[in-house]
């Protein structure tokens, strides 16, 4: 294998008596979509929060492009090329869709100390923002207030903001949730293209999307990875069928 873009080594995290992450080791290789699946409450979002820097692990390391970033803040990790989308949208709700995307482009520029010119008239930021919004299918909603978007559209905006960052790695927490059939298909197509730009760690409940997209799948149950492998490996794995997929038979 080549050098991973992103890696967790032995991450553990407890909330009181609840062990939300148990010695989680996984990696993300260039060009791949690595899906992280598991039942509700398995600890997927908790793991993502530790990778992105919103939560400190009790133990273990997060390595981004060869650098140990475990001690860095969320913003520092973002500047080093980590783009994350949220299961529960974290957007500037009073602002328009375009303003949110421009904010992403501003973060990517690393230069927020501009006090006079209007942000919306900055051609560099605006172009990056509009391109990203077009890719997720939000071009018709640039002037809409974010609070007025549907849940699915907010998820699309989350992805658009991540796109403006031009990151080294994407981490996406349920980007398909709330999207209709058409939206899901469009998002699946987008993620499929996107892996060439940067690999994606994808948390998703939509199994059709996962099986269509994933190069590898890891299965998380009670905070622990019980299996990692190709789509076929995971489908055949008896432990996985029992713990997770079994309910479909």
């Amino acid at each position, binding site marked *: 294998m080549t050098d991973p873009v992103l890696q967790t080594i032995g991450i553990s995290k407890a909330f009181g008596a609840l062990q939300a992450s148990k010695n989680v080791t996984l990696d993300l290789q260039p060009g791949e979509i690595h899906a992280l699946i598991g039942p509700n409450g398995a600890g997927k979002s908790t793991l993502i929060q530790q990778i992105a820097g919103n939560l400190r692990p009790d133990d273990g390391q997060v390595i981004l492009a060869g650098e140990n970033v475990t001690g860095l*803040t969320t913003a520092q990790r973002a500047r080093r090329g980590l783009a994350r989308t949220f299961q529960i949208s974290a957007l500037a709700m009073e602002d328009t869709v375009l303003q949110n995307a421009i904010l992403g482009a501003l973060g990517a520029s690393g230069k927020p100390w501009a006090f006079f010119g209007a942000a919306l008239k900055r051609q560099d930021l605006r172009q990056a923002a509009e391109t990203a919004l077009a890719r997720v299918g939000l071009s018709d909603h640039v002037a809409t207030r974010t609070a007025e978007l549907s849940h699915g559209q907010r998820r699309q905006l989350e992805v658009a903001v991540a796109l403006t960052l031009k990151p080294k790695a994407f981490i996406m927490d349920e980007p398909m949730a709330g999207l209709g059939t058409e939206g899901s298909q469009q998002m699946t197509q987008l993620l499929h293209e996107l892996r060439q730009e940067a690999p994606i760690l994808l948390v998703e409940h939509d199994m059709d999307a996962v099986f269509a997209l994933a190069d590898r799948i890891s299965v998380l149950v009670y905070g622990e990875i019980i299996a990692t492998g190709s789509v076929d490996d995971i489908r055949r794995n008896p432990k996985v069928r029992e713990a997770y997929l079994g309910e479909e038979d």
Partner: protein
Amino acid sequence: MSRETQINSLIMVGFILVPLWAWMTDEPFIITLTTKAAILALAGIGLNIALGLGGLVSLGHAAFFGIGGYAMGILASHAQSYDPILETPFLIEGTKSMIVIWLVAMITSGLAALAIGALSLRTSGVYFIMITLAFGQMFFFFSISWPAYGGEDGLSIYVRNNFPGLNTLDPIQFYIIVFVIMALALFLTARLAKSPFGLALNAARQSATRVETIGLSTYGLRLLAFTLSGMITGLAGALFADLNRFVSPTMFSWQTSGEIIVFIILGGTARLFGPVVGAALFILLEHILGGLSDFWHIYLGLLLLLIVLFARGGIIGILAGREVAHD
């Protein structure tokens, strides 16, 4: 022109016509009242950067207002007594030049805001309110117990400070200075709100996680906003002291901090002209109701309650409706 812009223009016209009319009919007291409203508006414009744009409820902005006031008082008192502030290791003399006083007021209040902000911004919510209040009170008690500059009695300055080419003791000429500064501050904050920095600051108020996730430090954004905010309120303090030709610890009191917040809530939080309308209304009520009853604050409180309960956008919100997203 949006409805809000129309209303804002009307307010500006009011700030020109009222003193003009007072000047023509020889009513210097009205000019002085308008001057006071414009200076307090400026203090509110400063706080509105932190509170409106940044969501930082500072109950300690009297610290900056007072620092500006004392910057004027100290510099001018040394100048009027021909007694240098410092002789060794180098000479620092007092001054009666408004421009120098404004610069000193802005630099000192900015430095204080930087220090207070650096510590306070490690907390949030109620803790932030309390810690800024505590810093404000520190300045208040310090000013009371520092005898060199009048202690509790404050400091009187006999003649208003100088501005090149103007007779600052003439109410209308002093008003022109204050009005131009207020207009300039409004222009700059309007630009700031729409700038990339303003966009990021405003987003940090709505979702700190979002701003961190795109790689910006909310702490850095807020600290700069708090510092700019303190500088403008400090400048207002210097003008306020010059208007009264007097500074006292009252400028540092927590009631002063509260009043500046009241201007903003009355007029409309995060609205460009919110503090202007709020301060004007405050002065108007103080003048009209204060003449009728010593307890006019009760009516002010009632009005404030109504606005908080039924009109979150303040007076500007009532008149202009919800803020429109600009493109």
